[in-house]
């Protein structure tokens, strides 16, 4: 019998596992494949840093911004149309120059990024919640409900997201009196973008749910007598969330772009809460007269933000895809 073998364990992975348990959770994360692929790719680290900087700057804009672009008292028309600080005629007080009202571009961009990010995040969360719920219900309940829901998804899918967002926004704009619309415009945009994007989540979750539904742990839960809702949320949901998160990261970039597009077209966020898209639109008018910085810098910020989010999403997708490793 193997008893004369001095302490060599049969399950040879046990020593590894015991070791892992002894390390803390953070240590385990650092040892994981995820962190490994992250830290090995300089591009991903760079984009993470860029993203963090932009997000930090945006979130803490009220604290960090050198000027308050909304405080009319501090604005001075004499300061208008200053080029960036390093160019001739620039003023060191305004790092990236000023716009037609004398507002500091750097601060305006920070506040603008804040709105862009806010709308982007919220719409992704909205789309995710809506899509996951629909997908879960469709997959779990099946039958006619499933058929109907998927038909709706198909119909929605025939229209590009931008169009749906535009349409929803237009409808609400027509339905509400003007003042009311201005107040809720931000939420309307979030709703519009969110509702144009839920199908991806729904489809993925539905597919996963259909697979999980037939697994034994679900049948076991049913036998114990748990309610369907309980089974769906506590048992099936955690198992199907993985790909959802990847979709969400990829979607964030798109959501930010969508909001920028809507605002650029003039049908997005209200003028009192300008996002990067609004800034670009405003700056566009001055392109031909030579004040290019009013449009270009918000543009660069937008691109950097979306680029870093996309890169992170790409890395996440590759890192979580076992086939590519």
């Amino acid at each position, binding site marked *: 019998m193997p008893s004369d073998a001095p302490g060599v364990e049969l399950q040879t992975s046990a020593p590894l596992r015991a070791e892992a348990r002894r390390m803390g959770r953070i240590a385990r994360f650092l040892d994981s494949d995820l962190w490994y692929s992250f830290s090995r790719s300089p591009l991903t680290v760079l984009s993470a840093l860029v993203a963090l900087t932009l997000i930090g700057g945006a979130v803490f804009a009220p604290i960090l911004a050198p000027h308050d672009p909304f405080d009319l008292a501090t604005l001075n028309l004499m300061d208008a149309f200053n080029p960036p600080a390093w160019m001739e005629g620039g003023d060191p007080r305004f790092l990236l120059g000023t716009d037609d009202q004398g507002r500091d571009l750097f601060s305006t961009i920070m506040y603008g990024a804040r709105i862009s990010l806010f709308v982007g995040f919220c719409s992704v969360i909205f789309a995710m919640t809506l899509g996951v719920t629909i997908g879960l219900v469709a997959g779990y309940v099946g039958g006619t409900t499933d058929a109907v829901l998927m038909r709706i998804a198909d119909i929605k899918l025939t*229209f590009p997201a931008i169009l749906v967002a535009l349409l929803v926004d237009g409808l609400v*704009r*027509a339905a509400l009196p003007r003042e009311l619309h201005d107040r809720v415009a931000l939420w309307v945009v979030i709703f519009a973008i969110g509702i144009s994007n839920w199908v991806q989540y729904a489809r993925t979750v539905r597919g996963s749910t259909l697979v999980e539904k037939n697994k034994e742990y679900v049948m076991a839960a049913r036998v114990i007598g748990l309610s369907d809702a309980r089974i769906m949320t506590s048992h099936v949901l955690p198992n199907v969330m993985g790909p959802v998160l990847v979709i969400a990261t990829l979607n964030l970039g798109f959501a930010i*772009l969508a909001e920028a597009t809507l605002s650029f077209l003039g049908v997005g966020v209200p003028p009192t809460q300008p996002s990067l898209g609004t800034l670009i639109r405003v700056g566009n008018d001055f392109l031909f007269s030579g004040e290019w910085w009013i449009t270009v810098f918000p543009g660069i910020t937008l691109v950097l933000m979306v680029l870093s989010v996309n890169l992170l999403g790409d890395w996440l997708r590759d890192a979580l895809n076992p086939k590519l490793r």
Partner: protein
Amino acid sequence: MFAFIVSRLLQALPVMLAVSLISFAMFAYVGDPVAIMLGQDYTEAQREALVRDLGLDQPFFVQFWEFLKNALQGNFGLSYRLARPVADLILERMPATLELSFTAAFLALAIGVPMGVYTGLYRNSWLSRFFLTISLIGVSLPTFLIGILLILVFSVWLGVLPSFGRGETVLVGGWWTTGFLTVSGLKALILPSITLGLFQMTLIMRLVRSEMLEVLRTDYIKFARARGLTNRAIHFGHALKNTLVPVITITGLQLGAIIAFAIVTETVFQWPGMGLLFIQAVANADIPIMAAYLMMIALLFVLINLVVDLLYYLVDPRLRGSLAGSGP
């Protein structure tokens, strides 16, 4: 195959019906057309006359039926803002948008597919990495920003290409206006079509690449290699054919996205197409135009999907149903 087409058309009916319902609902419940059309001062009598005229006092389904009948005849009523028949407005603008969209789609395919194949086959060459970097930036740039940048470089700084309008157009076939036949028309087409096509180009490139990589990992490619087939036969025969099949569907959907994104491009370049018309309608709550545009787009997408399905059917033998497979 005939049965296939018919079944697809039948499947499209509920979509069209749903879309018309939504369009009509927009008319019926959003805003007050009477108030918009009559302006600020009007008498009750005038209002009642208009209500009867427009048939707004009829029950819902009667109004819907009228709406459908009119729509099928191409009558979408008058624009609230421009007071002209919506159908005329749309027909006027359609050639501009379609020419722009097709040029952009053509560019996207002609450049995107070869680039995708190349980066899929030769993953590690520096050219591939270069293409990939460009594509990543391309996906992160919003269409309008590309347009603005192109205008900045080519119109403002270099002054070689126009930044708005269509240039001179030629009337063809009694109704269609084309910009393809004049130099100024072609020049005016360049920047907008690049703007519109760039996003799609990068998407197509990344799609083709990822499909290619997927295909190159399959068992049948491994078997083809094990049989000693030449690289050319494997890459451009087996792999390419299998790659293109799913690409066809996506490309078809992309055509729809292009037509939608034309809205943005037309705004940036003041291109007189349906998109510009639509965005102006959204900004002004001009419901008839919005409703008509919606139905037109739906019809267009249904047709595109039909063509894509047909292509799929022709290319993939698995969809054509199986002969009786006899024996073990």
